[in-house]
């Protein structure tokens, strides 16, 4: 009898603990959002949202204080778009190779190997880019005057986003029923036709979700881009902007937070950047989530 009561109480405690853990996760996100918002609000009293988003000059320590975030937003955009352009085709190719073309033994080795890339600290990628890859580009290409530029950040981010993209794409390919693949072959398709015309369309939701999650990773990455993109808060111009130094939103926060006086406009402006970043990643992740859900429904 006593045993039964104790058992039931224990059950109740465990259930509540799990419940609290779940609720805590949500509360934390809300608190972070509140923290960012409350620290950004003083900024909105000084400058309008329009001024902040479209101003082309970021110079918060200037006597007049210029808080135009456009160079930073574009900096992030350049680096991120560049990273996606590099990592999506590469990631898709690796995923196809692992899922469909590699011999079973190689597959068992390759997938963990790619996933291991995710375990390398970002500062190591930054270090590698700064000391090895950047100087190599500078030496070998005359068009690149400085060994720290937007596309170098993209390249480094590409390696960092690769595990996410490969892993999720590969799962998406695996969840396509084998008979879909075989049906296509049985209709006289070659292996390549089957991959491009049946497999990729069948896995498309998973592939899009993989890209969006990779995007989320790339846009939020700080240390690597801070180290390799040159830290110049200038407006990137056209395609040339890719081989010139830029400054991303994340790098700005990391670089300036230490020197901004507590409670100053500068201080608040950095939180505003954080709020903007939070909003962007939130939208991207939500989008990815919706697509993943839809793909699960498709397969069921």
């Amino acid at each position, binding site marked *: 009898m006593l045993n039964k009561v104790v058992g039931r109480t224990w059950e109740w405690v465990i259930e509540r603990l799990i419940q609290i853990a779940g609720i805590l996760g949500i509360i934390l996100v809300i608190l972070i959002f509140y923290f960012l918002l409350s620290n950004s609000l003083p900024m909105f009293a000084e400058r309008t949202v329009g001024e902040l988003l479209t101003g082309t000059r970021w110079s918060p320590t200037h006597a007049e204080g210029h808080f135009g975030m456009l160079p930073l937003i574009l900096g992030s955009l350049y680096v991120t778009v560049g990273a996606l352009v590099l990592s999506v085709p590469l990631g898709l190719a690796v995923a196809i190779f692992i899922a469909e073309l590699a011999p079973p033994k190689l597959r068992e080795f390759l997938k963990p190997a790619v996933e291991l890339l995710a375990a390398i600290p970002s500062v190591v990628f930054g270090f590698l880019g700064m000391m090895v890859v950047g100087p190599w580009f500078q030496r070998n290409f005359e068009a690149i005057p400085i060994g720290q530029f937007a596309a170098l950040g993209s390249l480094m981010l590409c390696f960092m986003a690769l595990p996410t993209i490969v892993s999720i794409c590969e799962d998406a390919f695996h969840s396509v029923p084998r008979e*879909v693949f075989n*049906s*296509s072959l*049985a209709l*006289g*398709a070659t292996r390549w*036709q089957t991959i491009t015309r049946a497999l990729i*369309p*069948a896995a498309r939701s998973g592939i899009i979700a993989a890209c969006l999650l990779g995007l989320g990773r790339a846009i939020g990455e700080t240390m690597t881009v801070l180290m390799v993109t040159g830290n110049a808060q200038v407006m990137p111009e056209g395609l040339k902007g890719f081989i010139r130094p830029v400054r991303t939103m994340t790098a700005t926060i990391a670089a300036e937070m230490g020197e901004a006086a507590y409670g100053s406009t500068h201080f608040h402006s950095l939180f505003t950047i954080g709020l903007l970043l939070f909003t962007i990643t939130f939208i991207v992740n939500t989008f990815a989530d919706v697509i993943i859900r839809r793909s699960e429904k*498709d397969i069921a």
Partner: protein
Amino acid sequence: MNSPATSDALKPEEVQSEAMEHEENQPETDQTEGPRYEEDFMSGPVQTSSAEHEQTADHDVKIETRDLNVFYDSFHAIKSVDMEIRNQEITALIGPSGCGKSTLLRCLNRMNDEIPGARVEGEVLIDGKSIYSNETDLVSLRRRVGQVFQQPNPFPMSIYDNVAYGPRLQRRLSRDEADEIVERSLRGAALWDEVKDDLRKSALDLSGGQQQRLCIARCLAVEPEVLLMDEPCSALDPSATFRIEELMLELKERYAIVIVTHNMYQASRVSDRTGFFLLGELVEFDMTTRIFEDPQDDRTDAYIRGRFG
């Protein structure tokens, strides 16, 4: 169940008897005189029906296997099988699970090539030509020998694109060409009337039976000569099964059909010839009526009486 005629009289279920009628009527299509039909239909004695099957058994041989052996690594899945598959006939392969009937089916369009460790020895001849020679072009072989799988598995795209998939692998189709192929194939698979207004809808929104007919339409679109069906009805309900069986009887006028089935009633309802497999061996291969009424081998007898499997 053994004799079409008696079961017709005994079993009131519509599905059953209608399917039977189809089978009984089949030999008639080869004959010209009208009276014959009536007489046969009225009396319908077992002998006549079976004898007629024998008489019409002179369709051309489409596929021939000679001393066919299949190994999965060291497992001997098919043991020295010789059989002939004829045009305008439905050949049923029956037997307990794991007896090798699906393996044999996959030999005929070389889908065994896709299975790691599978090895085929012996010959498979289609129209007298070996399909396991070095010159065999897999793509054109598989276009000639279409396959319908156990699970309805349309591609996750529109109904239209599913049907046009095969032809589009070969060349670019004009709008009109594609429209024509899609309509002809869907009509061939008895699906056109149900989907003609929804061709742009996702194929995954169709019911299971419709999906399976779509898969048949998808095969027909590449204009095959042989249709392989690997338990095409096992995932379907009885009425959908009936539609597919009806369809098979229509299709056999133009194709050689090989069906693997676990359902012996299905084999007896639709097929002209039946092969019974056991442990990789083709135990008995004969006219369907004979297999079900007067099997020569004790093991066949035991299986069709439901003693094992």
